[in-house]
């Protein structure tokens, strides 16, 4: 037992002193290694680059520098716990766990510690009910919205009538909310010669990584998305001037413009805007995690604001409220063009059937509240 006490003491010594710095800390629980690294790298790059841009161009958020604290999870729950515990003491404002497994872990923990979670398009869908899940946000859309988007799109394509047609859900049988695994569909589809345009993946199965390996076989494949694609936005000019050309880009700097890089940018933008909102509400620059939560709950993303940020029509405009932490659940459909090797949105951001989804959210969140002994707060 001597060895372990020695090792423990050494680790303790190393962890002993972590200085408290006056800045806004955004932990990034990234997965640049492991089986899902292909998806984790662009997201982490986008998330980091946006904050680098804010620091370089605007001197931070509301004059306070943002600091991205990256911790490698490899999409692994145990490493996620380690990352959470090691970063929460540094003044973390909001966690984006990225893995549904880690999210389930962190929902009770972060709520107890008073640190908001933002699970954008993954995690526990019923966390949209803000009166039960005070500290968890999943705007702008969740999996159940996604399912509805897909069905709505199918209805659209078929003139509103799908009688006699089958809708099959091809899913990965695991915790990722039984979410569709990224590549599986394309590859199996390519092998079974099923028409690609009849496939609609959820947003985590709609990146370049998912279609490039299938080559021309993936042409016409559709997937959902909650934000726009491509690099044709004014913010990319700023990114080039202030981040890439200065050699400050995260990772290898080769992911700009990919779907998941854009998602990282989008997540960072929402986090930064929430921080800005929180600064406005509380009138201080150096906000705490609790203030950040207030900012997330009062977040309002308008078309005009996205335009100011150099991201016009980058995502849907929406607002968050005390009882609705999920936003309106808007999404769009994107399609892959294998010859041009590019994704493009083929619809506007459109609504999902909230009258179907809302009762499900209410029922599931109330079941959680009963199980965990949470008294829903009045909204």
């Amino acid at each position, binding site marked *: *037992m*001597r060895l372990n006490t020695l090792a423990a003491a050494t680790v303790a010594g*190393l962890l002993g002193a972590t200085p408290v710095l006056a800045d806004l800390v955004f932990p990034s629980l990234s997965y640049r290694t492991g089986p899902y690294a292909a998806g984790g790298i662009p997201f982490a790059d986008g998330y980091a680059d946006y904050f680098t841009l804010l620091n370089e161009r605007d001197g931070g958020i509301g004059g306070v520098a943002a600091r991205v604290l990256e911790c490698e999870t490899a999409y692994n729950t145990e490493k996620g716990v380690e990352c959470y515990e*090691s970063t929460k003491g540094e003044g973390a404002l909001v966690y984006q766990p990225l893995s549904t497994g880690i999210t389930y872990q962190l929902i009770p923990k972060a709520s107890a510690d008073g640190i908001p979670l933002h699970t954008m398009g993954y995690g526990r*869908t019923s966390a949209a009910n803000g009166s039960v899940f005070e500290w968890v946000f999943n705007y702008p859309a969740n999996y159940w919205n996604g399912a509805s988007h897909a069905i709505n799109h199918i209805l659209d394509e078929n003139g509103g009538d799908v009688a006699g047609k089958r809708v099959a859900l091809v899913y990965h049988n*695991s*915790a990722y909310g039984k979410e569709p695994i990224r590549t599986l569909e394309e590859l199996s589809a390519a092998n079974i010669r099923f028409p690609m345009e009849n496939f609609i993946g959820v947003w985590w199965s709609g990146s370049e990584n998912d279609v490039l390996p299938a080559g021309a076989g993936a042409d016409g494949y559709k997937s959902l998305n909650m934000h726009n694609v491509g690099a044709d936005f004014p913010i990319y000019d700023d990114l080039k001037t202030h981040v890439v050309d200065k050699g400050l880009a995260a990772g290898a700097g080769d992911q700009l413009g990919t779907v998941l890089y854009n998602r990282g940018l989008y997540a960072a933008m929402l986090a930064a805007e929430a921080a800005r909102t929180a600064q406005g509400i509380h009138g201080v620059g150096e906000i705490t995690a609790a203030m950040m939560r207030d900012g997330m709950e009062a977040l309002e993303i308008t078309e005009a604001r996205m335009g100011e940020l150099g991201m016009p029509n980058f995502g849907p405009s929406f607002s968050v409220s005390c009882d609705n932490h999920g936003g309106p659940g808007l999404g769009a459909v994107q399609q892959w063009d294998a010859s041009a090797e590019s994704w493009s949105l083929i619809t506007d951001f459109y609504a999902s059937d909230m009258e179907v989804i809302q009762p499900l959210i209410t029922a599931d969140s109330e079941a959680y509240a009963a199980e965990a002994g949470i008294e829903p707060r009045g909204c």
Partner: protein
Amino acid sequence: MLYREAGEFKTAYAADAATFPIAFDRWRYYGVLAIAFLVIPLTINDYFASAVLVPFLIWSIVAIGLNILTGYCGQVSLGTGGFMAVGAYAAYKIMTAAPDLNILIVVLLSGGVTAAVGVLFGLPSLRIKGFYLAVATLAAQFFLVWLFNRVPWFYNNSATGQISAPERSMFGFEITGPMASAEAKYLFCLVIVFAMAWLARNLTRGRLGRSWMAIRDMDIAAEIIGVDPLRAKLSAFAVSSFFVGVGGALFFTVYLGAVEVGEAFGINKSFLALFMIIIGGLGSIFGSFAGAAFIVLLPVFLKNVMVGALGWPTDIAAHFEFVILGALIIFFLIVEPHGLAALWRTAKEKLRLWPFPH
């Protein structure tokens, strides 16, 4: 000079049969216990409990469990992850069915359930040996994970198949759930580890342990001298699965709080446990602790050095972790094929002669 038998006079059989016959060893053992029970709880924080010590303690129990089966009884098992899952899901079902039951009893009952399942999957060991048995236990691993993924009864029909541990407390202190303090979680695991390690140590040097080792060393010879292979093998499976089940229950209730069977108890966990006992030392309780420390603490330590102290990018550090860990495993297995426990044993032999080796 300090570490030697000379001058130790025993006046009772009990003293003669002590686990630590050398005074220096005994005092070292008491010292470790004093630090573990009295010093660490006063200095522990959330990070240290959740990310370092609790997983280490839990993996130690699992490693001791597997060591009983593989190291002492010679039955290779690749089903450890599956048996941990049995412990975790048993704990979940018991906790949700009987909310008032003490968490300690829940954990022990989960171990009991796992022991029964372990005996069931141990039955083939009476007919098949070695690699073939490893494959049979591999089947247990996959079957159990499949079962907990597919049958909604085990996860109370939750939408995602995740199970979450409800809050439970002991003596007024929360042990499970998000409000549990670092001290409570650590001490709860430590008490169980201490009791289980003590039990394992005494089982393995008693009649039962000797019958296991006889089977391991040569099963036909053991049978001829009167060891019943049915009893020996199945008792090894039962005791080993009990340990692994307790480890799995703690892994779910105290450590993670929410698990999904495929990710938390996949085949990787079976390999991890096997690596622990191979690196630590087969057939050694100390080896189980050393192996668990090597596999659990070293990556965290390396991460903190490379990312925290040296400020390297996280992905490069993560890759280097694999390289360093792999290189160290190869190094140790070349230098000491019998594991860290054998290294420790050699060190003690040298210490006996020191400072006059001739």
